[in-house]
């Protein structure tokens, strides 16, 4: 199993985004890292089925997503870390205010059905087209579109409800957030 340096660099270049995707899928950095590692191993073992010139990122995302899905089916518990402790392990800590938003957003995101969540992230954050996202998820483009729409709608409901009524114990933080809402 020898791969060219350029292929290796392309794989490594895809890792940060692949890893962010994994973290948003499983909500846990350590598990995400294991997923990424497993993905890279699979990719190398099957490197002959990768067609040079096609999108390496999309290929790796497909592998990772499939691994996650099969693992999830086995484990049957997806959100193990819903209290936010996982974010502590991130090296780059967001600023105080954005930290509040970060946590709020993460919580809302975790409430979405996983098929909606992955579609939204692939298209809205990882930078894939609807077509690529459809390939990654093994479904029709129209399905991706409707998942993304439903995800956005649901997030909008969750976020506006939570920021108005139920933002948690800290009034200062609530005030900060409210103040930040209106630039």
């Amino acid at each position, binding site marked *: 199993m020898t791969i060219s340096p350029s292929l290796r660099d392309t794989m490594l270049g895809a890792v940060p985004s692949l890893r962010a995707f994994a973290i948003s899928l499983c909500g846990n950095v350590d598990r995400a890292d294991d997923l990424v590692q497993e993905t*890279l191993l699979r990719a*190398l073992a099957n490197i002959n089925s990768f067609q040079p010139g*096609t999108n390496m990122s999309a290929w790796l995302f497909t592998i990772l997503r499939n691994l996650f899905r099969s693992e999830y089916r086995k484990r049957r518990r997806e959100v193990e870390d819903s209290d936010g402790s996982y974010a502590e392990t991130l090296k*780059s800590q967001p600023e105080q205010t954005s930290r509040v938003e970060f946590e709020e*957003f993460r919580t809302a995101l975790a409430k979405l059905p996983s098929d909606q969540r992955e579609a939204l992230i692939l298209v809205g954050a990882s930078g894939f087209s609807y077509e690529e996202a459809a390939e990654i998820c093994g479904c029709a483009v129209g399905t991706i579109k409707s998942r993304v729409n439903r995800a956005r709608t649901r997030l909008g409901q969750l*976020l506006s409800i939570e920021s108005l009524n139920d933002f948690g114990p800290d009034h200062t933080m609530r005030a900060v957030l409210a103040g930040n809402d209106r630039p």
Partner: protein
Amino acid sequence: MSDRKSDKPGPMDIRPTPTKRGKTNPGLGREIQSKIGQQLRSYYDGLLEPTPDRFVELLRELDKKPSGTESSE
């Protein structure tokens, strides 16, 4: 290798789609929609870190070894 448009994160925008037939949700304003897009990207950006060394080393190691060293489970 000219076709690498999607190797970098972030070029796609989720914007509120102003002229969308079949309104999605009457209660969901454009403001909220664009804020969701923003928050999604900053959430994701918050997760982006440089490639951890373990993966660099992993690929380097595997590259040295002869074939057939995949961990099989």
